[in-house]
């Protein structure tokens, strides 16, 4: 499979040789997962989102015309999906903790999703704090730090993904880093 570069593989998949899609998933699974995790804040939601995103990308691949890089296109889909998922997550968060059974109110069990996450992801204390503080940043700044400092996209690629100007990318990165720096400083990490 590795005798083809990514562009060639995408063309082969579009021509029906879908077995190459596995290589694409392998290449991007962690990036998509990390992005979803940073946005959604828990392992299970991020895992489910990652799978849905790859299925959705597979279905839409016939519409990909190669006008931008595949990775940029993939991130646009990932970003949109996570925005919607986050919105749904917010709506879910206001669901009542009580269920009405006949005429009696029954308390629903509260599942702490943080339990067991350590088994799935190795988290250091610093990592945990950084994750929390990154989560607290406004969306625009969090997203850009994920793309730049975690996924190491170039300024141009980020501008393409987020559909903003290059100078806006730079400004947001600077502001995002400064905000996070201040937050980490307040938590005693700097």
């Amino acid at each position, binding site marked *: 499979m590795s005798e083809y570069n990514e562009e060639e593989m995408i063309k082969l998949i579009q021509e029906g040789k*879908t077995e190459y*899609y*596995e290589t694409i*998933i*392998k290449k991007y*699974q*962690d990036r998509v*997962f*990390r992005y979803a*995790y*940073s946005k959604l804040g828990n392992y299970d939601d991020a*895992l489910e989102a*990652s*799978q849905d995103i*790859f*299925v959705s990308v*597979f*279905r839409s691949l016939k519409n990909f015309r190669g006008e931008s890089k595949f990775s940029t296109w993939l991130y646009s889909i990932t970003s949109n999906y996570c925005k919607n998922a986050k919105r749904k997550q917010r709506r879910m968060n206001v669901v009542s903790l009580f269920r009405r059974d006949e005429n009696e109110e029954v308390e629903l069990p509260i599942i702490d999703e943080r339990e067991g996450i350590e088994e*799935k*992801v*190795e988290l*250091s204390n*610093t*990592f945990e704090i*950084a*994750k929390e503080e*990154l989560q607290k940043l406004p969306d625009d700044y969090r997203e850009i*730090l*994920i793309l730049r*400092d*975690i996924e190491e996209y170039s300024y141009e690629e980020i501008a393409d993904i987020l559909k903003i100007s290059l100078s806006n990318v*730079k*400004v947001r*990165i*600077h*502001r995002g*880093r*400064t905000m*996070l*720096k201040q937050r*980490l*400083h307040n938590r005693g*990490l*700097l």
Partner: protein
Amino acid sequence: MKKKRYTCEQLSEMYDIICAKSDSLKKLYPDVCDESVKEFEQIEKTVEIVKQMQNLSISDIDNFISSTITKCESSKRFKHSIINKISLPAAAAIILLVGALSYNAYNIPVITPNNSLNIASEVVSEASYIIKVSDFSDMNKIKLAVLEHGGVIINESDGRLTAKSKITNYITLKRDLTLSEEDKIFYNRSRNLLLAGSNSNVYSSDYIDQTIIFDIVLSE
């Protein structure tokens, strides 16, 4: 030489330049003052901490890949069975036809994009809206479906539930109560395609927004 104080934004930009060149701050910017050096170090440390997240990964990768591929394959089979085996114009024609027939079956007027002809007007003139369900035993489930689709229950008698709602809600309710899961997907797709290709004038929104009274009965 007078030492220069850089703003945080400048330092952040300098960080990227320095990373790209794998060089030190002092070497590239010899005029930097001590305060700026300290600020720079904090930015450097911040990015370093954020980069720890690069270690995040899916714990059971094999399972993730195989289940994702299975989902992709099943979506491909469905797509192949319906669309891919026929040419695009033929598929579009069939989808338009099926969509039109679906609406016809629901007693909804279908106006074709080209000639604006209301091909179901004769059905509409004597419209009676009935949803025939195969199982009428779980009345609560049916009532809940009506309410979930924005309907209001008017009357309930033996073997007949009368309700009212907007036509759009009636369509989705009828679809949910009578079609299989696969049919629902296909129905949605054909309806979306119809609407997408309609330039928004195929269906009269006035009509779709009308409130109607309909009955839910057991199919014979």
